[in-house]
């Protein structure tokens, strides 16, 4: 427990110190890299809510990530072209305001997760994995074949969206926004993990029959967790698209789902801070291995294989012990 807390603090500090130093040293690329890690960490926290806390092995989280991205892309696209999104039955305009975009991304992610979850949670196990993967792919193909928002080419945004009182085009200021969102999401997840809901959800993961025997319905717990998970991942998607000022179907692809899952596993499943460590580690690997070899995915695959076969529990499992603390 003690070591885990230390590790949490160390990772958070590192993620903060690195871009601050880079800002002083005038290394904007490093800031962007850290911002990427921070945003991917949020996506991982989203997946971890379903996967780690609820035991729901979803291979379709790219759908929520991508929908969040498109929520940003579409709203900003209409705002920058001065065309309304919808004129009838009511007039909806685009927007460049980050808080509004975030809200839309969260709601979109939650709604999509609610619908997909309601269908796929009628099954369990392997079915659930295959179905979430398939629904994710559905959104991918839809985005490719729907020409209004760029189809295969995606959507570019000229200027990053705005946050009141900040210049978001300044890398360090945008980093600060993302870091603050990460802290809020972390705090919320940490509380939820200890809440009545978190307790019952964890029991549903370990033993659904037990949950029924105490008068609760596992399906409702799973669906709620899946919806929250989709909302968080959607928010991360909006930030990710804003970072790149670009959204494309690749955000919706199954590889994205796989990568988000890799963050969670590299860090440690079921730990609140696991995905943060995992995303940071992933970016580090991508950067260092990617610099060494064009074919760095082979090494990533080998590392992942090693973690799965021999080091279950990920980074946190190695450093803080295998057992997940529960109080």
């Amino acid at each position, binding site marked *: 427990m003690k070591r885990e807390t230390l590790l949490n603090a160390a990772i958070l500090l590192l993620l903060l110190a690195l871009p601050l130093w880079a800002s002083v040293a005038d290394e904007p690329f490093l800031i962007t890299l850290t911002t990427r890690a921070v945003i991917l960490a949020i996506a991982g926290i989203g997946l971890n809510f379903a996967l780690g806390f609820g035991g729901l092995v979803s291979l379709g989280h790219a759908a929520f990530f991508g929908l969040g991205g498109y929520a940003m892309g579409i709203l900003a696209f209409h705002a920058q072209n001065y065309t309304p999104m919808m004129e009838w039955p009511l007039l909806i305009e685009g927007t460049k305001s980050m808080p509004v975009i975030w809200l839309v991304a969260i709601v979109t992610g939650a709604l999509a997760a609610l619908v997909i979850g309601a269908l796929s949670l009628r099954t369990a196990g392997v079915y659930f994995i295959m179905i979430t993967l398939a629904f994710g792919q559905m959104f991918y193909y839809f985005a490719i074949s729907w020409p209004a928002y760029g189809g295969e080419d995606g959507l570019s945004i000229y200027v990053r969206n705005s946050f009141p009182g900040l210049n978001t085009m300044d890398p360090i200021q945008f980093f600060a926004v993302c870091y603050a969102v990460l802290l809020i999401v972390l705090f919320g997840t940490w509380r939820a993990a200890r809440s009545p*809901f978190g*307790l019952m959800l964890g029991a549903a993961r*370990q033993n659904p029959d037990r949950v029924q*025997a*105490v008068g609760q319905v596992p399906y409702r717990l799973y669906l709620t967790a899946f919806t929250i998970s989709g909302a968080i991942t959607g928010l991360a998607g909006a930030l990710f698209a804003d970072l790149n000022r670009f959204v494309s179907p690749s955000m919706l692809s199954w590889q994205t789902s796989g990568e988000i899952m890799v963050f969670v596993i590299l860090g440690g499943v079921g730990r609140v801070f696991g995905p943060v460590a995992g995303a940071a580690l992933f970016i580090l690997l991508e950067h260092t291995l990617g610099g060494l070899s064009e074919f760095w995915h082979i090494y990533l695959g080998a590392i992942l294989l090693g973690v799965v076969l021999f080091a279950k529990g990920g980074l946190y499992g190695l450093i803080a012990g295998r057992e997940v603390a529960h109080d």
Partner: protein
Amino acid sequence: MTDPVLDVRGISKSFGGLKASDAIDLDLRPGEIHALIGPNGAGKSTLIAQIAGGLAPDSGAVHFAGRDVTALSTAARARLGLARTFQISMLAMEYTVLQNAMLGALGHRGGVFRFVRSVMRDHDLVARAEAALEQVGLQDFRAFRTAELSHGQRRQLEVAVALTLDPKAFVMDEPMAGLGAEGSQQLVGVLDRLRQQAPILLVEHDMDAVFALADRISVLVYGRIIASGTVEDIRNDPEVRRAYLGEEA
């Protein structure tokens, strides 16, 4: 005679050609321990599943606390106060003993969909969970992880979780299974005191425990209740001796 808390009326269930439950009548009255015994494959688990929920009978009805619960889910029956313990321990193994007891208290009280306040700071729930642990003698193990408990302690914890549901009746599926002599004796003591709180339908193989505890015994063989009565009645019933006790000995 008081009304039964649990009343099983003419339940039948077939799997293919096999009649797992054949027109079973069974009731449970306040203050009693009613033991259900029978050889392996007699259909005890099938019957329990129909009483506690999870398996729908082909015909017949289950009445509990004055209402027909035949169509209700396991969870709904549990909320009405039908507390079940399992043959295999159905506990959240990663959780502490206290957390497992909290599950029962929380499930019973409701308000599960709260996301902010720490559940372990809910003093009312903690108090209820601790009281249940104390009743089964697990109070000193509250901070242990359930996976670290001995088999017997897990059995006690199962009972404690059932207790937190503030039950109107218990359905216990072989609580003594796998317990040593000492463990059985301890659990017999716990159950003996429990019957005043709520009656127990006790499915059990351990005949010493059954004879020590039961007010009434029903014998299930091949999906049918072949005899029902007091301990003395059952001991002396020739059909039971032939069909069941003879085999066991």
